[in-house]
């Protein structure tokens, strides 16, 4: 419990920075700086921000795999929650600001729109994850909590699909207004690839090898005499030797 509470400047930074896009968006809206079609712009911008947060959240684990930064893992919860907040804002802006909660209009316009259903699935997944993100649920659900929260990858995938469905053009034929879904899809794909166990193990092994080589280099007096003043920690040497042996 206390370990969870240890100060993590990264997490503090995320919680301070995350509302800024909201402040900018609301400010632009009320000062008439949000295009001459502000409602559509507000909806689209909130959606873009939500996807960015979701992708950042999904990137935490791969970043740790690549750079051995376990502190980053602590950002998954706040980033995921902000993704959920912005996705809710996106939906509220569309249904509330744009359609004024006029569901007769809304349904008439959307009954046959695939992107609406895909968007709703995304938001439902994010809501479930946000709702169960508290520690209390983690304890209560035990092993299942982890399983449940793997759904964040599915949420990422349906979010990108939603984006691909709302652009003008055709993703399959690579024609149209495609840069956003392509960029988001690439980040998602990279994150997913780095989650494949074999890939993850391989990347970690490579990383350790590189570090081992560096540690051994500084350990060799003939090569780097000055390094003696800063001996590598015993643990790292052991890891380095192990990594070399396993070669």
């Amino acid at each position, binding site marked *: 419990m206390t370990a969870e509470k240890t100060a993590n400047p990264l997490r503090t930074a995320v919680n301070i920075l995350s509302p800024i896009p909201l402040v900018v968006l609301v400010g632009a809206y009320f000062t008439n700086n949000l*295009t001459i*079609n502000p409602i559509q712009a507000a909806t689209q911008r909130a959606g873009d921000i939500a996807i960015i947060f979701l992708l950042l959240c999904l990137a935490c684990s791969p970043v740790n795999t690549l750079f051995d930064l376990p502190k980053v893992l602590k950002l998954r919860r706040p980033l995921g929650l902000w993704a959920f907040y912005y996705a809710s804002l996106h939906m509220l802006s569309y249904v509330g600001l*744009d359609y*004024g909660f006029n569901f007769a209009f809304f349904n008439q*316009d*959307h009954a046959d729109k695939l992107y609406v259903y895909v968007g709703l699935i995304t938001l439902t997944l994010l809501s479930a994850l946000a709702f169960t993100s508290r520690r209390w649920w983690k304890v209560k659900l035990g092993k299942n909590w982890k399983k449940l929260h793997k759904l964040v990858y599915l949420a990422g995938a349906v979010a990108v699909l939603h984006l691909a469905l709302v*652009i*003008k053009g055709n993703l399959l034929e690579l024609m149209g207004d495609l840069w956003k879904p392509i960029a988001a899809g690439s980040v998602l794909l990279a994150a997913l690839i780095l989650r494949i166990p074999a890939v993850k193990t391989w990347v970690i092994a490579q990383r350790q090898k590189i570090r081992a080589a560096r540690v051994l280099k500084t350990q060799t007096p003939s090569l780097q005499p000055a390094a003696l003043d800063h001996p590598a920690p015993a643990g790292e040497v052991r890891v380095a030797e192990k990594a070399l042996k396993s070669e």
Partner: protein
Amino acid sequence: MRTGKIPSIPSSEITPEGVYLNRRQFMKLAGGAGAAALLAACGVQPTENVATPETLSLADELGDPANTFEQITHYNNYYEFTTDKEGVANLAEDFPTTPWQVEVGGLVQNPRTYDIDQLRAFQQEERIYRLRCVEAWSMVIPWTGFPLAKLLAEVEPMTSARYVAFTTKMDEEHMPGLKSPFYPWPYTEGLRLDEAMNDLALLVTGLYGKDLPPQDGAPIRLAVPWKYGFKSVKSIVKIDLVEEMPETLWNTVAANEYGFYANVNPDVHHPRWSQATERRIGETKRRETLLFNGYSEQVSALYEGMSLYSNF
């Protein structure tokens, strides 16, 4: 194909007379709200019934006010520059529109290349049209131009000509959006010949009584107000009379979404955008979209006996 009588409406009928007269006055004053003051400064004494900001207001024949010059010139779908609607005005600023020629050819008796000044020499009229974008927003725009039919009459389409194909300028140096590999440039559009002959189909050279700004398709563009905005092709360099239905850019990109006809129709659903309702730029509430964008009277005869659903 039906090629019945072309319904024609003089522009004085499109706009309520009072508004029209005010507009004439406005046109005479050639400017915005400050025009009176400006003229006074030039030594012209404003008369009693001079246009005030109130009477300067323009409206379409349904009584809806025209969008402002600022709105019309700073929210543009012009992918040759950028997909960012607000960014077009800036990027198009230095787009060279002189010299400019439009090649009119194909299945015509008198193929001819027009210099832009020759096109401006056609008798210009002001028409306040609604523009309904396929993205579900709309504007009311006071265009200046002349009916496409007048140009076509000069070149005399052959009897074999059934369609009119339009091509937009491809200026790689000034149009950064052309670098996007995701579009089959150049921008092309088309109309059936009888649609092109309809009096509403306007070749536009001006906006609010001024020369058309580059971001709105200078120096010459089309306005077909009963169709979604993408049919109103900009910066035209070529007009071809052809026998077969021509390929058009958006139809090539996604045929299931952007039909050749693209008539505004609230009942023909589109997979992305709502077509039953729209947002008039400047308004907060949505309004219901009208069949043929409110121009049924003038154009519905063109589609008699034709399914508007399969020919969307």
